[in-house]
């Protein structure tokens, strides 16, 4: 029976059909989805923290409103994705509470960029411009995913992310056209984030887990294809602002039709993500723990009050 199910499941996948939450799926497919979507959700939530440091410092009323709305979107994406992950985890009895506490128990990874420090207002701009820009490339490639609920949520996320990119671009344009000090701050930010951005797309080689995701059409493109897309789009933009990329090896190879770049320190960033050893990993996880565990009493009170309301 299982084997028959599996064959018809794979036929549907290969025909390009999408799978719904209530339909039969192989355990491996479910596990891969949970791993990917949980990490995606958590990255959105942890992605709010580097910007949280700059929300209160936005230097004009317009920027203040824009950055608040932007980071709110990130939390909103986290919430949408958590709900997709919750449905997938339901057969295992795993709930939202655990999906959140996994963050500070180091049972789920989040993107390397969110372990890094946001030191200046220009960093906040570059996060919107290049980090969100990289994220859109990743997420747009996932729109074709075989899992229907994920695809639906991604559609909304991508639409909102394109506003974020414009928000970031707007901040960095103001800096690029500003004073000498503002331009320096901006160049310094590009220098600081560059290596993280290259790492963001993951290793060049196709890992066994990635291979299985490609097999199930959970994802369609390889890490390197996405990284090349990012370089295609952003290197010319960075140069056109009169900024430099901190990589003397960076060039477009006309014969191979691809970008050549110095590889990021895979070992260093791997450690940052795996062991949460980035400059801000522990501090931000502590904030998440404080929000979640420190306010368990609020969530419990709301559950009690709901029970009371139903009793009346």
């Amino acid at each position: 029976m299982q084997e028959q199910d599996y064959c018809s499941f794979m036929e549907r996948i290969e025909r390009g059909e999408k799978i719904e939450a209530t339909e039969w799926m192989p355990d491996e497919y479910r596990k891969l989805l949970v791993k990917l979507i949980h990490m995606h959700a958590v990255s959105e939530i942890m992605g709010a923290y580097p910007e949280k440091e700059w929300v209160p410092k936005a230097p004009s009323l317009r920027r203040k409103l824009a950055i608040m709305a932007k980071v709110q979107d990130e939390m909103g994406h986290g919430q949408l994705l958590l709900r997709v992950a919750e449905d997938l985890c339901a057969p295992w009895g795993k709930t939202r509470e655990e999906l959140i506490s996994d963050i500070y128990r180091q049972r789920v990874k989040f993107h390397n960029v969110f372990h890094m420090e946001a030191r200046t207002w220009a960093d906040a701009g570059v996060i919107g411009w290049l980090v969100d820009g990289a994220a859109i490339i990743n997420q747009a490639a996932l729109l074709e995913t075989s899992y229907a609920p994920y695809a639906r949520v991604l559609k909304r996320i991508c639409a909102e992310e394109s506003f974020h990119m414009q928000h970031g671009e707007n901040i960095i344009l103001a800096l690029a056209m500003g004073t000498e000090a503002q331009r320096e701050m901006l160049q310094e930010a590009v220098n600081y984030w560059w290596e993280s951005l290259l790492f963001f797309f993951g290793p060049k080689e196709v890992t066994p887990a990635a291979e299985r995701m490609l097999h199930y059409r959970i994802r369609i493109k390889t890490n390197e294809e996405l990284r090349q897309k990012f370089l295609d789009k952003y290197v010319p933009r960075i140069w056109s602002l009169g900024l430099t990329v901190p990589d003397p090896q960076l060039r477009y190879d006309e014969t191979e039709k691809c970008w050549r770049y110095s590889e990021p320190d895979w070992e260093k960033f791997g450690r940052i993500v795996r062991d949460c050893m980035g400059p801000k990993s522990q501090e931000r996880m502590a904030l998440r723990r404080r929000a979640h565990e420190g306010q368990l009493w609020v969530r419990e009170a709301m559950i009690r009050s709901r029970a009371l309301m139903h009793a009346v």
Partner: protein
Amino acid sequence: MDIKDAHQAREHPTYHQALVRWITQLADDELTLGHRDSEWLGLCPDIEGDVAFSSIAQDEVGHAAFYFELLHELGEPDPDRLAFARKSHERRNAKLVEQENGDWAYSILRHTLYDIFDGIRLEAMRQSSYLPLRHGVAKIQREEAYHLLHMKTWVVRMGKAGGEARQYLEEAAVRLWPQLDDLFSFGDADEETLLRFGIIAFGSAECQKRWEEQVKVVFGQAGLLWPGEIPLSGRDGRLGQHDPALAQLLKTMTEVYRLDPVARW
């Protein structure tokens, strides 16, 4: 008599002065509370709460931006200068909104107390003689009604839940009561002038009376003890007499702005 725009308002110095001072209080209240609300980002009890609090923060700062724009039309500096360049003693917000967020109970009770006050103050301006204000108020009232509903629901449900939730709310009320008095002060905006020219329809004593009636209903529904009369603190935020919390808030809020106040950011 209706005053249709800033140009007309500037022809009447007494009217103009009272109006500017009054709107400054509105703008400073909303900006300061909106800023405090935004500090909850990433720290709310659940992700849904985070998204909701951010909407409220954005509304408050949006209202502040509207009021600052009115002030600018009336001849004051541009909105960003008003929001970022004034010192603590130049600000006219009530002390309540500048206090640090404290715990969840404190934050939602503070917000409820403020939103009830703000709703009454907006009601007082619904037929304001200053038409640009009257028009803005109609829209702001719609948004504030949702804030109040949201915050009141939190307070009532947490109060009803009993246990530590009610205990924390009662502790919050004890902390909040001495921070309330200048909410009902109109400071240097001359109340008699505001009433005489119909900028507002009723004064501070009526605001406080209505506020107590409404807050008592919420406390009753939540099963909270009424803390009694509001003690006098002897300091009036509406006259620029603020707690150190405001100076700290401004230091953070203006950190980037101060790097270069004339640059475009």
